[in-house]
């Protein structure tokens, strides 16, 4: 006699226990701490903060530990926690021009005010596995340049002074009003650049990387130059309602990328360069660069360019760039679909039966 499978609840509880055990791994090894993750897997923490849309190194490190190093799962944990937090208001826009620079490079000018600052980068490392890291590593302290008082103006600002690049704008009807917030207002297409940038900043690094790459291979080619990439600390300020003036509430690390792109001009505008903008929490250079490329590609309509490539398709890009949404829906295919499958099965069997009967008739 057939008995239906029961005990879903016990199975789930046991699966959770097994997961916890697997997470801990070999118990003869030391348990990893969130502090260690935050310090030694810092770029992972930066990515989780960026895509999790919450600047909290401790929570992001904890999420990475809880997720067993699965970055998208960690992003998801951070997002789910973020959504329960009370909202006090919006900060004053950060001033990246006043950034305390730890890295700053420009591919457009050999030297410029503020200089080129290489900072901590993989760029010129030879990708040879370093067996020295297998055991305790205690690197030599790096030589630090003295902190300079020299201002570090934005490269694109220098171009702007000469009228060679379009002014920065949110590119929408409400260009000068308060920026939108897609976490509070339902999205409706087309969207203005402010909301687009917000979504790209939360978007999946891999997805944006692939799209940015596609624009360099001819799908919406727009000749990008890395005008400037800067990484460093910026102040975050907030205006409490009862005070009425801004107070600084802390510093956060930011990566900002401004791409300079070609534009041949139009009937109303002389030839000038155009902008693509990327930003992330922490040090996520690849993400900020890809984002800037995609931002520029998505401005096709605004700049009267033909929209032919995937990276220029706003609905396509924005509807699919969020990895928490994407992973949820792809992985939901694991859930039972007995009922739907049964109805398809019934139809396929019926159609095969009818076709068989037709064939038989034809043969007779």
């Amino acid at each position: 006699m057939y008995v239906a499978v029961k005990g879903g609840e016990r199975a789930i509880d046991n699966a959770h226990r097994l997961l916890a055990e697997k997470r801990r791994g070999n118990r003869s090894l030391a348990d990893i701490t969130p502090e260690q993750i935050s310090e030694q897997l810092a770029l992972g923490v930066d990515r989780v903060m960026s895509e999790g849309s919450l600047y909290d190194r401790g929570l992001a490190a904890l999420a990475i530990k809880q997720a067993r190093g699965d970055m998208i799962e960690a992003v998801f944990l951070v997002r789910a926690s973020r959504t329960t937090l009370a909202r006090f208001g919006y900060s004053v826009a950060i001033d990246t021009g006043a950034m305390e620079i730890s890295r700053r490079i420009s591919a457009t000018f050999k030297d410029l005010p503020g200089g080129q600052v290489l900072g901590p980068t993989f760029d010129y490392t030879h990708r040879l596995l370093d067996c020295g890291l297998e055991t305790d590593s205690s690197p030599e302290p790096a030589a630090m340049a003295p902190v300079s008082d020299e201002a570090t103006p934005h490269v694109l600002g220098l171009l702007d002074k000469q009228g060679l690049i379009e002014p920065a704008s949110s590119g929408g009807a409400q260009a000068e009003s308060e920026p939108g917030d897609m976490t509070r207002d339902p999205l409706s297409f087309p969207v203005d650049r402010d909301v687009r940038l917000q979504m790209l900043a939360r978007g999946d690094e891999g997805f944006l990387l692939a799209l940015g790459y596609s624009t360099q291979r001819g799908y919406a080619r727009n000749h990008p130059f890395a005008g400037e990439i800067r990484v460093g600390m910026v102040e975050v300020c907030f205006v409490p309602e009862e005070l009425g003036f801004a107070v600084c509430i802390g510093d956060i690390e930011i990566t900002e990328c401004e791409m300079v792109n070609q534009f041949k001009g139009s009937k109303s505008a002389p030839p000038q360069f155009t902008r693509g903008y990327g930003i992330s929490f922490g040090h996520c250079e690849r993400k900020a660069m890809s984002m800037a490329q995609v931002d520029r590609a998505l401005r096709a309509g605004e700049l009267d360019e033909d929209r032919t490539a995937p990276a220029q398709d706003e609905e396509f890009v924005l509807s699919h760039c969020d990895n928490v949404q994407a992973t949820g829906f792809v992985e939901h295919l694991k859930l039972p679909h007995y009922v739907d499958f049964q109805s398809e099965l019934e139809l396929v069997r019926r159609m095969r039966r009818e076709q068989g009967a037709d064939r038989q008739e034809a043969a007779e």
Partner: protein
Amino acid sequence: MSIEPAGCRDSGYNFAYLNEQTKKMIRRALLKAVAIPGYQVPFASREMPMPYGWGTGGVQVTASILTPEDVLKVIDQGADDTTNAVSIRKFFRRTAGVATTEATAQATVIQTRHRIPERALGPDQILVYQVPIPEPLRFLEPRETETRKMHAFEDYGLMHVKLYEDISQHGHIATTYAYPVKVEGRYVMDPSPTPKFDNPKMDNCAALQLFGAGREKRIYALPPFTSVVSLDFEDHPFQVQAWEHPCELCGARDSYLDEVIIDDKGGRMFVCSDTDYCASRRMAASEAAE
């Protein structure tokens, strides 16, 4: 069948998890959805502690309508004991502390994925559907900007063309679940991926039916006693699935059946997908026999 009484809820969270501000936003969307039957109301769906595509829309709707006095039932594929149903029920026991039940008749709120219970719902019940893709036109036109216009202009020609192409190609309308319906003669609506077997239950139903799509950020509704017509053609009227055999556990001939494979030699049997319906029929039969 019994009710698991209301218990302690986890005081680390607000009642039913969502904060009051979020609930207000969803509640406003729900009232508009009820006032415009079949129209998809955009809402600022929140990230939930379960994955998108796993019922976040249904969970947000349930969380926004639940009162401490409710008795909640959660089903997936018609069954109370499928893993995701168990998981969602547990979520609400923990965050809302409400009473739960497996008995359709005792529930005041029923959250479902892919089925409508076999037992007719009453006026004091609310059915909450989990919806993956709320837009019935999405597979014909992937762009929201386009489908929104089609709804605005009541331009549903594309849908009829698709269904008719099925007929000319296969001799049948090849849609077997998520079969589109027309609500009060106006909006074409996706009934969620329920088998078309369940479509007739939506029409003129005594219970309020609410639909939540979390990832796609849409809420829609059918007030009680609303006209819900499955799209069809005069020469190809809408038909539901039928089985040659009754349920092999309870003998029902009027229920949707799951196919269970019992060996690797082609052996299979058919049993009710609605586990509560099947169990209550068997219980009634054994009581009658005593």
